[in-house]
């Protein structure tokens, strides 16, 4: 790993000033992604500003019934929080389906949102990668694409965003609070990550010196009946081939509120707006679920050998909605 200098920030103002004033400085959270990338010589900051111990580690109830989650809350603490487990079970389940217990104890919520969108070739410095070296080409095209996306990818990059937590948060309409020397701004999570298009090296709309300080969840009545379903190559501790975060509110057999997002298939946590549109107000039947999945996957395209993901996504959406219908209609 290349040499760098390290600063531990006592408060948010000091942290954002330090990164703002120092070229090639980066914020350091739990380190589970950034330290790994630095060791592989993919990231090489000159200065790390440690924000992992900032006093942003609370989960607070908001007056409207929503939740405010501090950016340095550890992933494990978020998953175990009683309000998260009862009001937003999909969030707890998503966290617990990601990484390992060791990594969840280290990783922060802010860092989870900002882990790099990546594929095997991004990590392989012997291969070209438009994300690592803009303009150098994409080794995944024509290569191993089992983990590549089927929605939102471009000819420059087909990597997927690996977060499980983000899929649940984006389904629930989470808002990210960001701090910099220019003040505070609030960004809907669905707008935080960019699609790759011609600039896959730019993964989010954040400026280099902007620090995520909190994530807010609005009150979502449907969230009490929510679920995260992850399909992967082994039973635990693997990235998603496909994952579905879903929440359904039912009145009899009519869907009054639907939330749906997909993971493992796109360069960003993918809010399934088309599917939600079909579901809302419709009867909770197998036929409706099929139509919803088909609407979302209408523009899905296989990249090399990942065509199986289109059918797998369809089936996983339908299975998750079916499960929520049976549970949601319980007395």
């Amino acid at each position, binding site marked *: 790993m290349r040499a760098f200098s390290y600063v531990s920030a006592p408060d948010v103002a000091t942290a954002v000033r330090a990164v703002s004033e120092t070229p090639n400085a980066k914020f350091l959270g739990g380190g589970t992604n950034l330290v790994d990338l630095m060791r592989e010589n993919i990231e090489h900051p000159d200065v790390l500003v440690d924000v992992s111990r900032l006093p942003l580690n609370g989960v607070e109830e908001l007056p409207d019934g929503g939740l405010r989650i501090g950016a340095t809350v550890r992933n494990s603490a978020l998953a175990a929080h009683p309000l998260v487990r009862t009001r937003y*079970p999909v969030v707890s389940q998503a966290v617990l389906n990601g990484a*390992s217990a060791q990594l969840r104890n280290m990783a922060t919520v802010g860092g989870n949102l900002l882990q790099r969108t990546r594929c095997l070739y991004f990590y392989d410095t012997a291969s070209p990668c438009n994300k690592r070296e803009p303009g150098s080409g994409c080794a995944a095209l024509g290569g191993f694409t089992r983990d590549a996306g089927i929605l939102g990818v471009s000819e420059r990059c087909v990597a997927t965003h690996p977060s499980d937590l983000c899929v649940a948060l984006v389904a629930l309409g989470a808002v990210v609070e960001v701090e910099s020397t220019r003040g505070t701004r609030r960004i809907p999570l669905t707008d935080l990550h960019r699609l790759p298009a011609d600039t896959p090296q730019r993964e989010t709309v954040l400026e280099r010196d902007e620090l995520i300080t909190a994530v807010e969840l609005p009150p979502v009545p449907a969230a009490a009946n929510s679920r995260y379903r992850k399909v992967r190559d082994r039973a635990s501790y693997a990235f998603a081939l496909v994952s579905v975060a879903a929440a359904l509110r039912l009145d009899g057999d009519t869907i009054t509120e639907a939330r749906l997002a997909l993971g493992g298939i796109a360069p960003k946590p993918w809010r399934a707006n088309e599917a939600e549109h079909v579901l809302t107000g419709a009867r909770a039947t197998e036929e409706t679920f099929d139509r919803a999945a088909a609407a979302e996957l209408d523009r899905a395209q296989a990249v090399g050998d990942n065509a199986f993901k289109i059918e797998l996504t369809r089936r996983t959406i339908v299975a998750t909605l079916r499960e929520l219908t049976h549970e949601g209609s319980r007395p």
Partner: protein
Amino acid sequence: MAELRVRVNGADHLLDIPPQVSLLDALREHLGLTGTKKGCDQGACGACTVLADGERINACLALAVQYADREITTIEGIDHPIQEAFVRHDGFQCGYCTSGQICSAIGMLAEHKDGMPSAVTGEPSAEGEELTDEEIRERMSGNLCRCGAYHGIVEAIGEVAR
């Protein structure tokens, strides 16, 4: 280079190391505590698992400087019934992953006791349930064993848990 104070197995040490040194390398190369193993060095195998204030972490992805004020426990500082249970149940073959498995198991038992759910745990009301083999396998999935001693590992942990 500033001196770094680290607390390991109840003793304080002053280390003159740059910030890129991982907690794992600080333990092994600078303190001579080679019981903690380096497997993948990228957070995938769990061989480097140690406890920080009782919580299990991967020492390979931890910068030592980030853990300066934490109480670190390595296999050298552990005297726990799980160790004999691993011997009784053949919870290892080559032994390379074992110190990580032991530290991870101790952290896991504490998490379970504190009500930490896992991906296979049901609704919050199901808390306090027995640590089933399915739960143990899920909760220990961050520790790989290339010899495949998983059956013995699950039995050993299950015996101590129950």
